[in-house]
């Protein structure tokens, strides 16, 4: 099972995603993993944000830290487990700006992540942030980032079994278990 959850900032995406991951874990058994894509840092504020997120999730999560190589992180998840990735925007910026991968390789990495998750029977909940409905960027580098993130979003929305848009804490179902809208 693969879910893609997106929406605006502070729309309630993480809360919804955590609840979904917990539900799948209860249904399927196995452990719940949290994939932290944020790099550890000496920055006190950044560390405080990470700690706050960790506290909000509560007990019972196994945290994996991996800023870029999503497939390597997935390989550390026991088959039958549930993996929550929150959020893709951070991964996208780290891949473009702090790795040797380009956009095509980034998209290929997501494709492999989905294939491997299904093969290993890992349920995957992926959270991202919609940043494309404001004024279009003027800076070419920002365009590159936006276009890459959107490529990833379109691929995930296409391939996921469940696609949810969260707004004001409420979820809009775009797709659920293969029942796709035309």
């Amino acid at each position: 099972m693969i879910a893609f959850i997106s929406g605006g900032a502070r729309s309630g995406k993480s809360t919804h995603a955590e609840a979904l991951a917990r539900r799948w874990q209860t249904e399927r058994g196995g452990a719940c993993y949290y994939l932290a894509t944020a790099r550890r840092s000496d920055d006190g504020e950044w560390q405080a944000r990470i700690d706050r997120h960790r506290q909000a999730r509560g007990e019972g999560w196994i945290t994996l830290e991996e800023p870029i190589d999503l497939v390597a992180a997935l390989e550390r998840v026991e088959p039958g487990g549930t993996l929550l990735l929150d959020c893709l925007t951070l991964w996208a910026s780290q891949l473009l700006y702090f790795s040797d991968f380009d956009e095509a390789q980034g998209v290929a990495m997501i494709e492999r992540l989905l294939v491997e998750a299904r093969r290993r029977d890992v349920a995957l909940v992926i959270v991202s942030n919609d940043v494309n409905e404001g004024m279009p960027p003027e800076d070419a580098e920002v365009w590159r980032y936006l276009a890459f993130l959107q490529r990833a979003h379109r691929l995930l929305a296409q391939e996921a079994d469940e696609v949810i848009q969260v707004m004001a804490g409420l979820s809009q179902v775009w797709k659920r278990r293969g029942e796709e809208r035309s």
Partner: protein
Amino acid sequence: MQLFIGGACAGKRHAVRQRFDAPRWHSAYVGSRLETWPAFGEARCLVLEGWECWIGQRLAAEPDDDRLRRAMTRELDALRAWEAEQGSEAVLILLEMGRGIVPLGLEKRRLRDLNGWLAQDAAARCERVWYVWNGLVKSLTL
């Protein structure tokens, strides 16, 4: 007339290509000006995209927002009249750009406002309105 609206790189063009067979494209992104669309008057289906560019091209010459909004509305009405005359269909692709922070520059604020009004005026004239989000498409009309 049908309207496809969504954010940048949301998959709007793909959604249109999936639904319409070999339409003519009139695109601001390859430099076409809005007023030259009647050259494709014989088309069965005409897609018009890049409306934010067409608005942008008119901002300097028309400082009054209401007059510019009405001028854009007249273009929509001309397309409706053409559809009725030819038995053809016009498909509009509009960029959603109203969900970010209010831009600091006056020109950008005007562009954003006029683009939003155009979307409202277009939706009011279209039989079908589609929202494109991350490659998925939802009908906003019944």
